[in-house]
């Protein structure tokens, strides 16, 4: 009597209960071994059966054989997985990753690089200008004459020449005497407009990132040193719409995951006319009101305007043909707002406990 059903059932139970590879091997052998495996024995019995029985039972045995083989191989994989799982039970994935180049880029330069990249994609040229300037470039050429209250807007560090220098180094060229030659740490990157245009002609699209200085006692919200990004375009028929559009484009890219709205407020900067401040909608609360925007919904973001015709003249650009816009961002404030940094001094003291967070 050939009980395929029972054999099927038994083999299945035994394979399922095999605990390891060795046991499985023995069970496999028991059924499929060439000499005396149960299935092989069945096949041998087949020849004693009548033909019609043979035709019926033959394929069933073949199927049984295949079934057992499949089961066994599936069980073998399971056993391997269990074994691996067992060995990995004490594999502590919470151990700290091994240090691989643990340095970090300063958050200000990270932000600056991103901003610069955006302007490069918009076709701007990057110029890198001096940090120690004379009053001419920092103020006079920017339409901020001496004894003008606009100079109060920026407290200035003045610089003295080295003690070893003597009068021999003073220029005898009368051209320099008409200018105020006091030297200073630049208070703004806007002087880069004048510098850059000394060897260029419009049309230009220029950005100039860099360090600027204000004569201020330091505390959590005041720093002597910070970074600005100056941006200006001079071409035919440049208009307020271009200024707003460019700033909008910049912020749409800078904060591409936010829906940025702009607010334009008239403001006074001596080197532009009209001049304006640009606020962007708060990137944290989307204008619902939060502590970062002091519940106003707006973040002050850029000083800007249409370049004053006198400044164009100082660049040697004909304001009858060309016009331009200019704006500047304070990168430090953007970084502080973005990362929730409440003490500006952390940006300039080189503390790795801070720097390594970026």
């Amino acid at each position, binding site marked *: 009597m050939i009980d395929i059903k029972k054999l099927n059932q038994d083999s299945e139970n035994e394979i399922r209960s095999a605990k390891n590879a060795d046991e499985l091997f023995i069970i496999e052998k028991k059924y499929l071994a060439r000499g005396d495996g149960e299935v092989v024995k069945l096949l041998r019995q087949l020849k004693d059966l009548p033909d019609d029985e043979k035709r019926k039972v033959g394929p069933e045995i073949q199927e049984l054989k295949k079934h057992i083989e499949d089961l066994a191989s599936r069980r073998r994989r399971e056993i391997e997985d269990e074994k691996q799982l067992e060995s990995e039970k004490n594999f502590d994935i919470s151990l700290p990753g091994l240090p691989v180049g643990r340095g970090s880029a300063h958050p200000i330069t990270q932000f600056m690089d991103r901003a*610069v990249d955006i302007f490069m994609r918009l076709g701007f040229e990057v110029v890198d200008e001096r940090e120690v300037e004379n009053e001419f470039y920092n103020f006079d050429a920017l339409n901020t004459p001496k004894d003008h209250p606009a100079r109060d807007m920026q407290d200035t560090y003045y610089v003295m020449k*080295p003690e070893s220098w003597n009068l021999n180094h003073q*220029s005898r060229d009368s051209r320099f005497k008409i200018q105020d030659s006091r030297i200073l740490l630049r208070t703004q990157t806007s002087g880069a407009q004048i510098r850059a245009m000394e060897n260029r002609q419009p049309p230009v699209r220029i950005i100039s990132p860099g360090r600027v*200085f204000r004569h201020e006692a330091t505390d959590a919200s005041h720093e002597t040193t910070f970074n600005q990004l100056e941006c200006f375009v001079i071409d035919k028929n440049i208009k307020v719409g271009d200024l707003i559009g460019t700033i909008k484009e910049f912020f749409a890219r800078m904060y591409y995951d936010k829906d940025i709205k702009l607010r334009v*407020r*008239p403001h006074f900067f001596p080197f532009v006319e009209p001049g304006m401040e640009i606020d962007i909608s708060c990137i944290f609360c989307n204008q619902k009101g939060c502590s970062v925007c002091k519940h106003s919904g707006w973040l002050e973001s850029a000083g800007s305007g249409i370049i004053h015709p006198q400044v164009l003249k100082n660049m040697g650009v004909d304001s009858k043909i060309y016009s331009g816009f200019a704006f500047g961002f304070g990168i430090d404030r953007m970084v502080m707002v973005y990362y929730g940094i409440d003490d500006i001094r952390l940006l300039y003291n080189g503390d790795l406990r801070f720097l390594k967070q970026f």
Partner: protein
Amino acid sequence: MKLPLSWLQDFIDIKKIPAEKIADGLTLSGSEAEHIGKRAAEELARFDKVVVGQILEIQKHPNADKLQIAKINISSASSVTRSALSALTIVCGAPNIAVGQKVPVALIGAALPNGMAIERRKIRDVESEGMLCSAKELGLAEDAAGIYILSQDARIGESLVKTLGLDEIVFDLDITPNRGDCLSIRGLAREVSALFKKSLLTVPPFLLSRPLRGKTRKSTRPPADEAGKDAEKIDLEVRVEDEKLCPKYSAHIVYDVKVGESPQWMKNRLLSIGIRPINNIVDITNYLMMELGQPLHAFDADKITNSKLKKMIVVRKARKGERIVALDNKVYELNQEVLVIADAERPIAIAGIMGGRDSSVDNETKTIILEAAQFDPAAVRKTSKTLNLKSDSSYRFERGIDALRVEQALGRAVELIEQIAGGRRDPKLYDIGKTPKPRSIKTSAEFISNRLGKEISEKEIKQILTSLDFSAISASASAISAQIPSWRNDIQIPEDIVEEVGRIAGYGNIAPTIFGNDSMLQDNERAKRQEIGLTKSMSSIRNIKDVLIGAGFSECLLYSFYGERHAKLTDVSLDNHFQVANPINPDQIYLRTSLTPRLYEAGEKNFNNFSEVRIFEIGRVFLPNHESGSPPKARLAKGGMNHGLPEEQKMLAGILINAEKSAMDNFREIKGVIEQIGERLNFAKDDFQWKADGAKTAISVKDENGELHIIGNCGIIDSRVRDIFKIPESTALFEINLSAFLEIQPPLKKTKPISEFPAVLRDISLVVDQSVAYEKIAQSIKQSSKLPIEIKLFDYFADEKKLGKDKKSLAIHLSFQSPARTLTSEEVDKEMQKISEALEKNLNAQIRK
């Protein structure tokens, strides 16, 4: 500039517009409302039961020495008997009360701002029906010394909120320096008028030439007083010596003023705008300065000296050695640049800035000379800077006043003085200087529309200009011309009109565009410059930073200035450093000539928290360059003026602190990092040259022509650094001049073919004298074999105990490989033999087996 809403409402009817909307309007028109000061409803509720009372009588408390019992009238009824009947009995401990005074009275049931609840209660057996309040108890000031005494004109029984104007809303506005005209209530009312399209209320004209006897309505002075006063009439001469610095000077004499306290409403307004009330005369000048924007000053005529029976007022430059004690009680030494108001002998005021103490109005003053003038903005500012003295007056003169309305303000002041402080005006108006001619401006709708990027019609422009008080406007399709209001000193060029139109029409209505001009597209020069700028600096610097960060260095940004202790650690002498003229602290005295001193400092701080510190900075240094002392010719042609400026160089510096590693290990790591940076910029290791230069190692690289250029140095910190900063002696550092390095074009690289034949590897280990450089060993190895070899140091140590004095041990991998065939072990062994012999013979090496 503070703007109290009720004061604004004197000039314009805006009761229906919410305060927030007015604030937004001002912000969007350029006068940013930074804050709206306003007491909340619950705060005001705390004053619900606080009213004005008058002290009718004061008695000693029978049971307490320090207490008094006051009868207080709080009834507005005029009948004396009735008020006496309804008077409250209040026990009070403050010493500053007197009969007749008006004081704040907290009635039973009041819950004061300081949290105190007022109940009917007995104080030492006397029942008190309320409390007299101090400013502190009312939460109005810190002054707890006594009862808050109100002005005599306060109305009995009136709620204190009304009397003190506690429900005032005050906007705190940020006025830009170009808008001197907005530094007054009237000026801001003009802005609000244009913004909300509401016309200004008509302000009564101020008559200047009112007849001497024509008493003002409210004067309380009995006519009898006026008799015989003419005899005292002052003979005054006013002279302006410098009409450039003082284009306009007007003055008026007012006799018989009664100096005293100002009315409560005036005090309230002055306090709300941030000015401390002094006396009625001074308060009126301040009040009108705030209201009309015209600074005024009152002199006590009796304190002004005569010259030949005439009182003199001279506007002149100060004389050598002159000084003045100003109203702030400080002595100011005046130089000959300073414009002063003087009498016959001495300065009595610093023009436009502050009056002198010795000529000021005090309680005894009878006759005043009232001044309203216009002073040159730049001169006032210069003097203010020189003397380090600022005032509300100088602030306004610096920003420019309305030259056409100087006399008007003077007239209004005289009128207010007559109303409030009595007095009779002398009919004579002293008036020197010309009234400025009105200025006009020309532009066009096309220009305005083009600059804004929005089509704006002549009609709309005309409307906007009209709302801003421009007059005589003619607007055609091709041109617009208009007369500029006398107070708008900031309007000079057509672009200023663009701004006026833009800000009133609203910048928010301009469609954003991106410079759509085709002249951009055809400009190869610009594209070229852009690419040069990109490759020469930006991308190279980013690559360098990538290498450093990959090697575990963190970027710092440190200060551009440092102190003497830092400066002494550099190669530049102290007297060759550029100095900060106005440092705030000693660590800001010198401009840095090297990035390393601040890095040591940051390294020291970090070493307290980390056993290993790797930091770097990229930044500018400021070097004394005598060549930049005289302007280079090439620059001159372009108009560049670098005369006297330092030579700025962009530097890269870093330090590596690891106390557990030897100086040699740290040095080798720094060297490896620099080589890696070089490779990133397409220099090969062989392109570098390292040469001892004093205690440091000079780093040079080869350019495309094979020429060497020094780009910086590296090394181990010296004892001078360790004297100042607590960092281990094995600390290594490097500093590279990026400005120079990035200019160098690397030699063209050629790739080497890769051999298909296997390499044969051998190691050699040797001990040599410390003085034998690795470079020599490598040379010797390469020279002694005819087969091509790659050599690589894999172990190095110098241990006196193991090797003996001045010895070092090196272990080197040698890789023999031929491009043409497989090398046999035997021939390599033969080469090894030659190599060993050469090392032993030439470098006195012991080969370790």
